[in-house]
C-alpha cells in the first residue's frame, strides 16, 4: 500500500514538473523569438512581390524610387489594411512586431533611412485640384482615382512596365499615405515608372497642394473594409434534374454550347484517381471553356486557376440526379479583386443558366 502511494506521489510530482517545464519552454520560446522579417516576407509577400522585391503580381517594392518616396508608416499600414478590392490582402493577423520586421526587411533593400514626411495635413483648393487631376492624373489613375486595370505581368502587363497606376481612391491607400507622402511623390515622381515629377512638368507647389487635397477628398472617413468576410453563403449552385443521369449529361452538353462555351471533355470525378474500370460512374464531370472569357479573366487576375476549367458535376444518389457547380461569388472574396468580382458575377449567371436549361 505504501509503495503504491509513494509511486503515485512520485508520478504526480514528475507530471507537475513536466507541466511546468512545457509551459516554461512554450512561454520562453514565444518571448525570446523575435520575428524574422526575411522569413515573414518569404512566407507572405515573395510569391507576389518576388524574392527580392522585383515585383510580379505585386508591385516592385525594391525599386529605389519607390522606397525613397514612401515612409515606414505607409508600408506598415499597407500591410495592415491591404488594398480592398485591389488584390493586396490585409494582413490583420500579423502582430505589430511581425509587421515591423517585414517593413525593416523591405527597407533594407534601399540601404538608406526611411524618408520622414511632415504629418501636417495639406490645405489646398480641392476644386482646382480636381481640374488638375482631370488634366494630369486621370489618364493613368482613372477619372475617379480608381487606378490602372489588371494585375500580374504574366497576362496583363508588359515586362518593361513594372507598375500599374495605383488606385488613389482606395480606402487602403488613403489610410496608408500621408498628405506629405503624396506631395513628395507629386514633387519628385518615381524614377523608372510612368509617374513623373509634376514640378518638372510645370505645376507650382500650390498646384500640387491642390492636387493632394483633391486626392485626400476621396476618403469617406471610414476604415478600409474587410473584404474577406463572407457575404455570400451559398457555396454551390445546384439543381435537381428530372431526367436520368445520361439524359442530364446530354442536356448539359447542349446547354453549355448554347452559352457559347466549348465542351472540353466528359469524365468521372474519380478519373485518374481510381483504378480504371473501378471509377464511380454515378459522378460525372463536364469540363468546358470560353477562351475569350478565360483570357480576359486571366488578365484581371492570374490566380484564377482555382476556377478552371469551368465544370458541372452530375451525381446520382438514391435515384435522385443532382447537377452542381461551384459558386463563383462565394470564391471571389478570397481574391480581393473587385475587377474579378465582375467576372464571377457573370460566370454565376452562366452556371445558373446552364443548370436551368439542362434540368427544365
Amino acid at each position, binding site marked *: 500500500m505504501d509503495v503504491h502511494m509513494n509511486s503515485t506521489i512520485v508520478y504526480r510530482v514528475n507530471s507537475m514538473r513536466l507541466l511546468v517545464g512545457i509551459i516554461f519552454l512554450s512561454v520562453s520560446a514565444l518571448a525570446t523569438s523575435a520575428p524574422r522579417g526575411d522569413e515573414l516576407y518569404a512566407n507572405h509577400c515573395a*510569391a507576389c512581390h518576388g524574392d527580392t522585391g522585383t515585383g510580379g503580381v505585386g508591385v516592385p517594392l525594391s525599386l529605389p524610387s519607390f522606397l525613397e518616396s514612401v515612409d515606414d508608416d505607409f508600408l506598415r499600414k499597407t500591410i495592415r489594411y491591404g488594398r480592398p478590392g485591389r488584390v493586396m490582402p490585409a494582413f490583420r493577423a500579423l502582430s505589430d512586431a511581425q509587421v515591423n520586421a517585414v517593413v525593416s526587411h523591405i527597407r533594407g533593400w534601399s540601404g538608406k533611412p526611411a524618408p520622414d514626411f511632415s504629418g501636417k495635413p495639406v490645405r489646398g483648393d480641392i476644386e482646382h485640384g480636381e481640374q488638375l487631376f482631370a488634366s494630369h492624373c486621370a489618364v493613368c489613375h482613372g477619372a475617379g482615382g480608381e487606378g490602372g486595370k489588371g494585375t500580374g505581368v*504574366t*497576362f496583363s502587363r508588359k515586362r518593361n512596365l513594372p507598375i500599374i497606376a495605383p488606385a488613389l481612391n482606395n480606402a487602403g491607400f488613403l489610410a496608408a499615405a500621408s498628405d506629405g507622402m503624396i506631395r513628395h511623390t507629386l514633387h519628385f515622381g518615381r524614377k523608372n515608372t510612368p509617374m513623373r515629377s509634376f514640378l518638372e512638368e510645370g505645376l507650382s507647389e500650390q498646384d500640387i497642394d491642390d492636387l493632394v487635397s483633391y486626392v485626400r477628398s476621396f476618403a469617406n472617413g471610414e476604415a478600409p473594409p474587410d473584404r474577406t468576410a463572407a457575404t455570400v453563403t451559398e457555396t454551390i449552385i445546384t439543381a435537381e434534374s428530372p431526367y436520368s443521369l445520361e439524359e442530364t449529361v446530354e442536356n448539359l452538353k447542349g446547354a453549355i454550347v448554347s452559352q457559347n462555351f466549348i465542351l472540353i471533355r466528359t469524365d468521372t*470525378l474519380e478519373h485518374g484517381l481510381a483504378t480504371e474500370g473501378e471509377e464511380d460512374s454515378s*459522378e460525372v464531370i463536364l469540363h468546358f471553356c470560353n477562351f475569350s472569357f478565360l483570357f480576359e479573366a486571366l488578365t484581371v487576375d492570374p490566380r484564377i486557376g482555382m476556377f478552371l476549367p469551368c465544370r458541372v*458535376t452530375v451525381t446520382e444518389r438514391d435515384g435522385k440526379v*443532382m447537377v452542381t457547380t461551384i459558386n463563383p461569388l462565394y470564391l471571389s472574396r478570397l481574391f480581393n479583386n473587385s475587377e474579378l468580382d465582375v467576372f464571377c458575377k457573370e460566370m454565376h449567371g452562366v452556371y445558373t443558366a446552364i443548370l436551368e436549361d439542362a434540368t427544365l
Partner: protein
Amino acid sequence: MKKRLASLFLLVSWLYLPQLVCAEEIIMTRSVLAFPEAMLALQESIGAHGYTVSRVQRIDIGLTGMGYKTDKYRVVFAGKIEEIRELTDKAPQLTAYLPPKISIFAEGEQTILVTINPQVYADIAGDAVDPIIFTHWESDLRSIFSDVNMAR
C-alpha cells in the same frame, strides 16, 4: 491529471493561436525554377506526399490554340481516392470543388504556384466532415509548396 493536461493543452494552444489564425485563404509560393523544372518538382512532391495526380489541365495550350498569347499555365488535380470518396459521400456539396487543384504558371524565368487553403473546404463541408482532414491537406500542401520553393 487529465484536467491539468487539458488545461496545459488549452494554454499552449492559446499561446500559439496567433500563428494558426495567420493562415491565409489563398496559399501561394514562388519558385526560382523555370516552369518545366518547377512543374516536375511539383509532381514529384505531390507523389512523395502520397497523392495521385489525376489530371493536368493545360490552360496555355487551349489559349494558344485559340490564338491567344500566354505564358505556360497549368492546373494540376490531385487527391487520394479513399479521401475523395469519403468526402463526397459525407458532404456532397464538396463534390463540385474536388479533387483539389493547384495552379502553376510561369512568370518570366520563375514560376508561381497558387491553391485554395483547404480550410476553405472545411467551411463548405460544415459539420458533416471531421475538419482534421483539411488540416492534414493544408499541412501537406504547404510542405509540397515548400519543396517546390526550395528545389534548385
